[in-house]
């Protein structure tokens, strides 16, 4: 199947999904005007990757600012991971933050609190 590659823009993050390794990476700001158009292909890719075999899905996030619809889309993504986890599919999230931006760590932790799959909030460069 195919990899996912989006270049970053001023309002959307860079997205790289590697089909073979199951690693999905997102970095940058996310406040697209057309959030649906942006996130649906990403969520579709994740759904297809989860449905196809036992390759662990590893999500690595280096996200900064997000608008409301991006927050919601990320929760949709995590919901999918939670469901896969409940069915025994190995999934994990690592959310990296810059030591100069501790608030991102607080926000990532807030996202994390409802989920039971492995979800780490990691200080970059630590």
């Amino acid at each position, binding site marked *: 199947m195919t990899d996912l590659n989006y270049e970053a823009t001023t309002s959307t993050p860079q997205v790289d999904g590697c089909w073979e390794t199951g690693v999905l990476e997102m970095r940058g700001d996310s406040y697209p*005007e*057309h*959030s*649906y158009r942006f996130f649906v292909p990403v969520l579709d890719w994740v759904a297809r990757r989860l449905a196809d075999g036992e390759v662990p899905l590893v999500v690595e996030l280096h996200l900064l*600012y997000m608008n409301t619809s991006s927050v*919601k889309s990320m929760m949709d993504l995590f919901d999918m991971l939670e469901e896969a986890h409940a069915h025994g599919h190995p999934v994990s999230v690592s959310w990296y933050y810059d030591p100069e931006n501790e608030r991102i760590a607080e926000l990532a932790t*807030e996202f994390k609190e*409802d989920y039971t799959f492995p979800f780490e909030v990691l200080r970059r460069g630590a």
Partner: protein
Amino acid sequence: MAPWRKDEHLLHQIATLLADPQHDGHPMKTALSLLYQRFLEETSQIERLTELADAYQAAQLEASEEASERYRRQVSRLQKVIRISDQYQQAMRAENATLAVTAACDALTELPNRRFMSERLAAESARALRFDKPFSLALVDVDNFKGINDRHGHGVGDAALLQTARSLCAALRAYDICGRWGGDEFLVIMPETPGPDALGIALRLCQSVSSPQESELPRSIRLSVSVGVAECGPHSAPEEALAEADRALYQAKAAGRNQAILAG
């Protein structure tokens, strides 16, 4: 684009639900309303409505066991989205405020920079017109600054500018605004102040800079400034007043420095 039509219809239904006072105080309505407002603020074209669709359906469900469980989940999920995005917005606002201060500030003197002063000048000019009252401005130039730089180096030149900035601010009234206009030149805006009064302030500026004070500068340096003052009438262009102040400043320099001259 056909797929969005359904959402537009849904949007109308949600707007109708939100407008109905019968559901006021309902937690789902409150959450839905906040989210709906967010989308209006953030997106020019509302397209991301699947969550709103679920929420709306949940709000419409009959109160069965299953429905109320699903309903509770929906409300708490919506509240979480709003809570997190509130925090993001606060973080963003704090960062923007810092950026705005940095963008308006001169790095050396920490006074407002030229860009900020230009905006203030335009604003003051608009205010003068609105209230039909003049204001004044003063261009302040450090005397022999080039000589200080050449003889003692840029480090001492910077210290001289910093000391001048402090002396100017100490002599101004609380509502006057002083900024670094460029190089060794400062601009002072004096709101609702006619020319002769502004000249009085400008003389105070000269005195404040040249009076003996605790200083990091070499003893051989005696700081002074020359000042050109101009009144800007309610119907005059601020650029014109700036040009007049510049001519007056030139006269003050030519007349021996360490003095202020009122244009016209």
